[in-house]
């Protein structure tokens, strides 16, 4: 019993090690808790309960396997090219019209002169544009599929052309 009392004294002084605290947790989790220690039972019980609280909205990042990347290569290439084109256009708009003397950009009504900050903000906006473009190019996939499905009809029309000749 003295050991638990000693451990509790150390615990309330903030001097216990993790191992000693685990010893206390085990003791208070058991059915051998002495009457004099009962008041502390709820404290250790709460710590155990709190450690079970989980984040209800967990985010997991998924990465695409190689074969999917291959299929989407063209789409990604178009999106990247569009992104680069947009970068050039926005960069021209941001910096092209400025004389060296007026080296600044106006973002959300604020004049920002720090080149690095402007570049960072522009990059953030451009990656957003890039993401939007990638999303908007999705319907092109359907056109590609329609094109593929029309192939047999085209063959039939070729055959009928030959017969007519």
């Amino acid at each position, binding site marked *: 019993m003295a050991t638990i009392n000693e451990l509790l004294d150390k615990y309330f002084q903030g001097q216990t090690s993790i191992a000693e605290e685990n010893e206390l947790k085990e003791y208070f989790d058991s059915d051998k808790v002495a009457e004099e220690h009962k008041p502390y039972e709820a404290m250790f019980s*709460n710590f155990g309960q*709190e450690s079970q609280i989980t984040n209800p909205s967990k985010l997991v990042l998924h990465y695409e396997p190689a074969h999917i990347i291959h299929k989407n290569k063209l789409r990604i290439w178009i999106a990247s090219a569009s992104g680069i084109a947009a970068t050039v256009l926005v960069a021209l708009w941001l910096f092209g019209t400025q004389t060296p003397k007026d080296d600044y950009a106006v973002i959300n009504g604020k004049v920002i002169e720090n080149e690095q900050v402007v570049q960072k903000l522009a990059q953030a906006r451009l990656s957003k544009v890039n993401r939007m473009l990638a999303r908007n190019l999705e319907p092109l996939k359907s056109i590609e599929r329609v094109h593929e499905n029309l192939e047999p009809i085209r063959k039939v029309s070729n055959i009928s052309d030959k017969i007519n000749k």
Partner: protein
Amino acid sequence: MDSSRFNVYILSLSDKLFRLAKSILQSDDAAQDAVQELNLKLWEKRDKLDVVDNVPAFAMRSMRNLCLDTLRQHRETGEIQNDVEFTELNPYQQTETNDMALRVRQMIDKLPELQRTIIRMRDVEGVEISEIAYITNLTANAVTVNLSRARQKIREQIMNENKRVEEKVWRQ
């Protein structure tokens, strides 16, 4: 750091980060938003995470700083009150919760932010004092002092509660 390693190192800490944010912000929704915001921020900086020695401690420290910034912003706009100081539970709270463990949780929630963060990091998460010192930007000695104060305040509250219950029994 690629997405698979990011999942292992950062997203596996999701529950711990959520509990820390919930303890500081005192709201489930705000805590979820804070964890998501931190995940995005860390994802943007994932290339730099490879040089960090202790990624979990770094993430916990970033989580606390982000939550404190959120609290500061809310205080400036008058959305919430200043940090809740240690007070006794009101009679409504006392009758509302019969579960003593839940009452202890409410007692911890009433501690100043630093003390409740430290007591939870140590007693719920089992974090070493040196790591708590890094996360809270304090010395190890200051962490021990705050931990001791927090535990003693909870003990004092529990003893007062028990005394009140005993008195009630004798009066009946």
